[in-house]
């Protein structure tokens, strides 16, 4: 009996590792493809081999990206836009989330519900009217245009995340501070906000990533190649008549590495932030 259970346990373990390994390979495969393409020398870009590493691997594509293309410029554009969206997201969401978590006021439930409803908007529902508004305001081909649209997309989620987190901090903390004579603002700013640091980090990252890797909005608003953000630049390597796979691979890797690292470091938080608001209690 004991031998049998031991054997079935070994079979079960083997099965687990085998299946997990297969899925890891599937998960990594496209990323390895990108790495592989980015390292190919010019004459092997259309190679039909599936080697682990290309022959005569070279960093030429990376060098080319920075010396012959506007890549650095696009990177700067993306960084600027993402930073602006992040600051907007964090400032407004940290304040509004606190208000929603701690106080009762007219239109509170309506407000929260409508924030949730925005998650069901198809992308075009906001993009199209905003696009027409931006045309009328002369904000097409400006950074301000994309910053406005991205903030609008990111803010509802950020407010929900912040509210959900503040809800987990006991209000007795502020009450104690208030009894000691602290002002309402002081209690919020000096006591609660530092405690909500994890949620602030998530909010910041979420806003940053929204802006850093967005393509479809930017494609309509930023039409001049000098104003492009990174995803537009990436697409331009792919869109031209002869796809520049080498450049595409190198650029993709540079764009994704910071995001992937940040994401992995915070994926646990991200999920608790996502589910906290919806499945509390």
């Amino acid at each position, binding site marked *: 009996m004991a031998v049998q259970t031991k054997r079935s346990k070994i079979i079960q373990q083997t099965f*687990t590792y085998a299946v*997990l390994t297969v*899925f*890891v390979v599937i*998960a990594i*495969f*496209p990323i390895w*493809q*990108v790495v592989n393409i980015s390292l190919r020398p010019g004459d092997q870009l*259309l*190679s*039909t*081999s*599936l080697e682990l590493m290309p022959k005569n691997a070279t960093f030429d594509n990376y060098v080319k990206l920075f010396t012959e293309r506007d890549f650095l410029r696009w990177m700067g554009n993306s960084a600027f836009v993402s930073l602006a969206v992040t600051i907007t997201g964090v400032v*407004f969401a940290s*304040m*509004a989330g606190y208000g929603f978590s701690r*106080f009762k006021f007219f239109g509170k439930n309506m*407000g929260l519900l*409508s924030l949730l*409803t925005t*998650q*069901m*908007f*198809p*992308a*075009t*529902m*906001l993009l*199209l*009217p905003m*696009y*027409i508004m931006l*045309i009328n305001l002369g904000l097409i081909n400006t950074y301000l245009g994309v910053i406005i649209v991205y903030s*609008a997309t990111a*803010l509802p989620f950020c407010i929900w995340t912040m509210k959900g987190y503040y809800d987990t901090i006991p209000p007795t903390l502020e009450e104690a501070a208030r009894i000691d004579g602290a002002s*309402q*603002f002081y209690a919020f700013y000096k006591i609660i906000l530092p405690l909500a640091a994890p949620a602030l980090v998530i909010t910041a990252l979420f806003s940053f*990533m929204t802006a850093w*890797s967005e*393509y*479809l909005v930017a494609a*309509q608003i930023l039409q001049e190649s000098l104003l492009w953000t990174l*995803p537009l630049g*990436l*697409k331009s390597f792919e869109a031209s008549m002869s*796809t520049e796979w080498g450049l*595409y691979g190198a650029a*993709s890797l540079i*764009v*994704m590495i910071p*995001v992937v690292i940040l*994401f*992995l470091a915070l*994926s646990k938080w991200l*999920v*608790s932030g*996502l589910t906290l608001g*919806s*499945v509390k209690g």
Partner: protein
Amino acid sequence: MSKNKFFITFLVLPAFVLLAAVVFYPFLYNVALAFGNMNLNKIRDWHFIGLRQFVKIFTEPSQPDFYAVFLKTIIWTVVNVTFHVTLGVFLALLLNQQIKGKSIYRTLLVLPWAIPQCIVALTWRGMFNYEYGSFNLILTKYLGLPAVEWLRSPTEAFLACILTNVWLGFPFMMVVALGALQSIPHELYEAAEIDGATWGHQLRTITLPLIRPVMIPAITLGAVWTFNNLNIVWLVSNAGEPSDNTHILVSFVYKAAFNFYSFSYAAALSLVIFLILLVFSLIFMKQSRATEAAY
């Protein structure tokens, strides 16, 4: 008391003003547009024409056909979410055992979710290339099968989009399910084991019912995201190729708005999509009695 009111105003008002300007106003503007006749030539002198855009959507033939696209969107959503949830829960169950290198496996399996969607889409589009894409290379060189015209025929192009999206979506469900699994007390399984319950029995009576409350909101969210996922379909099929046969509703609207500049038509269609999703979410959440938890 009045001081309190001032403080609330200070906290909430800025966000509300911003949201009013960039969410509520555009929303109302979209509703207004849906009843009008705006296109690129009539940006400033458009006027209301009642329900004509909606009549056009539901009755006039379009290329591609609205009902065909709608059906495709439902297939797209159901197939994707089914795979996301099944694979996600399955992998979470595997990861929730005592195994070596658990966190490494977990991290690597989350990767597809971490990569920016536009890169995922463009990379997969490359992998579906007929001559040089790795899918056809694997099919022809290692499996001895004929190459597939992934991006040139409608069914295969749609399948390519689904494959891409399944790959990118399972980690979310996996992480959510893993979180839920870890919160199930061990004693339950020990008790079940003493009672002689089999693994399958435990799965049905303990595991699945207990992760349900967490999974239902996640599935709702996942379904809404998938239904609205413009990035993957648009970029993998390169704007609906071949000849507008690879569309789901959102990509169809995006094309109507930004390639054909039929602004009012697109606005009306956006509104239809939104209402479909709203009704779906309300019914789904109510059915699973999770609505009260949403507050």
